[in-house]
C-alpha cells in the first residue's frame, strides 16, 4: 500500500515553480510572508476596512434597536431627547471634527516625511480626543444628578434656569431612550479610549522616526479607525440630541 502511494507522490503537479522574488532587496519593514511592500500595504488597508465593516454592524445592532423603539415611542423619544445638552453635544461634534483634521494632517506629515508634523498633529489629536471624553464626563454627571439613569433609581428631574431641580414627568419608553443613550454613547466613548491608546502608540512610533514616505501603514490604518469613530458620532449627535430640539422652547 505504502509503496503504491510512494510512487504516486508528486505524480501530478499543477504548478511550475518560480524563485523570482529571491533577488529583491527587502524593505526592513516588510514582513517575510509578503511578496512586496505594496502587497503588505494593500493587505493592511483592506484589513482595516473589513474591520470597520464589522464595527458598522456592531453599532448597527444598536441603531436597529433605536429605530424600533423610536417607532414605538415617538413621544418619549422627543421629550427625552430634550433632556440632553445640545450645547455640550454640539461642542463635542466640533471637537471630533477638529481631531479628524489633525488626524489627516498627521498622516499627511508621514507621507511627506515630516516627523515634527506627525508629532504635533498626533498630540493635538490626543488632546482633542481627551477633551471629548472630559465633556462626555460632565454630560454623564449631569444625567446622574438629574436621575436620568434607567433602573430602580430612575427619577427624572429637570434643571430650571434658576438652578433648582424639579421633578419631571417623562412618558413611558423614556427609560429605553436613556438606556440606549448610555449604551450608544458609552460604547462610542470606549472606542474613543481605544483610539487615544492607539494614537499614543503612534506617537511613540513617530517619535522614534519609524514612519517614512515608503512606510506609514500603522498611522494610516489608525487614522481610518479614528475617522470611523468620528462618523459614528456624526450620526449619534442628531439622532440622540436634536429630536424635538427647538431654541427657546
Amino acid at each position: 500500500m505504502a509503496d503504491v502511494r510512494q510512487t504516486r507522490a508528486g505524480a501530478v503537479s499543477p504548478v511550475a515553480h518560480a524563485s523570482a522574488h529571491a533577488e529583491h532587496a527587502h524593505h526592513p519593514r516588510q514582513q517575510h510572508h509578503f511578496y512586496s511592500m505594496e502587497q503588505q500595504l494593500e493587505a493592511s488597508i483592506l484589513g482595516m476596512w473589513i474591520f470597520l465593516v464589522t464595527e458598522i454592524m456592531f453599532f448597527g445592532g444598536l441603531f436597529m434597536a433605536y429605530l424600533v423603539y423610536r417607532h414605538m415611542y415617538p413621544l418619549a423619544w422627543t421629550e427625552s431627547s430634550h433632556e440632553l445638552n445640545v450645547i455640550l453635544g454640539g461642542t463635542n461634534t466640533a471637537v471630533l471634527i477638529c481631531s479628524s483634521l489633525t488626524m489627516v494632517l498627521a498622516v499627511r506629515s508621514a507621507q511627506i516625511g515630516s516627523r515634527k508634523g506627525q508629532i504635533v498633529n498626533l498630540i493635538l489629536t490626543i488632546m482633542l480626543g481627551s477633551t471629548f471624553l472630559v465633556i462626555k464626563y460632565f454630560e454623564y454627571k449631569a444625567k446622574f444628578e438629574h436621575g436620568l439613569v434607567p433602573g430602580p433609581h430612575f427619577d427624572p428631574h429637570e434643571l430650571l434656569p434658576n438652578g433648582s431641580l424639579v421633578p419631571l414627568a417623562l412618558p413611558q419608553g423614556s427609560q429605553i431612550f436613556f438606556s440606549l443613550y448610555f449604551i450608544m454613547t458609552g460604547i462610542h466613548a470606549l472606542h474613543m479610549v481605544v483610539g487615544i491608546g492607539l494614537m499614543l502608540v503612534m506617537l511613540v512610533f513617530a517619535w522614534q522616526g519609524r514612519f517614512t514616505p515608503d512606510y506609514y501603514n500603522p498611522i494610516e490604518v489608525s487614522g481610518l479607525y479614528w475617522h470611523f469613530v468620528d462618523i459614528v458620532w456624526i450620526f449619534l449627535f442628531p439622532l440622540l440630541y436634536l429630536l424635538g430640539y427647538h431654541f427657546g422652547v
Partner: protein
Amino acid sequence: MSSSGHAPITPVGTYIMVFVALLIGTGLTVFAASRDFGALNTPIALGIAVTKASLVCLIFMGVRYNTPLTKVVVVSGLLWLLILFGLGLNDYLTRSWMGVPGR
C-alpha cells in the same frame, strides 16, 4: 489606483475645506433642528449627517483614491446595515396590518 498603493498626497487646502464644510454642516444640523419642518425633520438631519459622513469617508479616509475593492467593502457594509434595518422593520411596520394581536 497607483501601483504603489499609496494615495496621492492631498493638499492641506483640501483638508481645510472639508473641515470647514463639516463645521458648517454641524451648525446647519443644529439650526435645522431649531426649526420645525414637520415630517421632514429627521430626513433633513439624516441628510446632513450622511453628507458629512461621506465627506469624511471619501476625503479624510481616502476612499476616493482607494481600490475598487475598498469601495465594494464600504458599500457592502452599508448594504448589510440596510438588510438588518429593512427586514427588521419589515416586522415592526406591518404588525398592525392584521388586526389580530400577535400576528
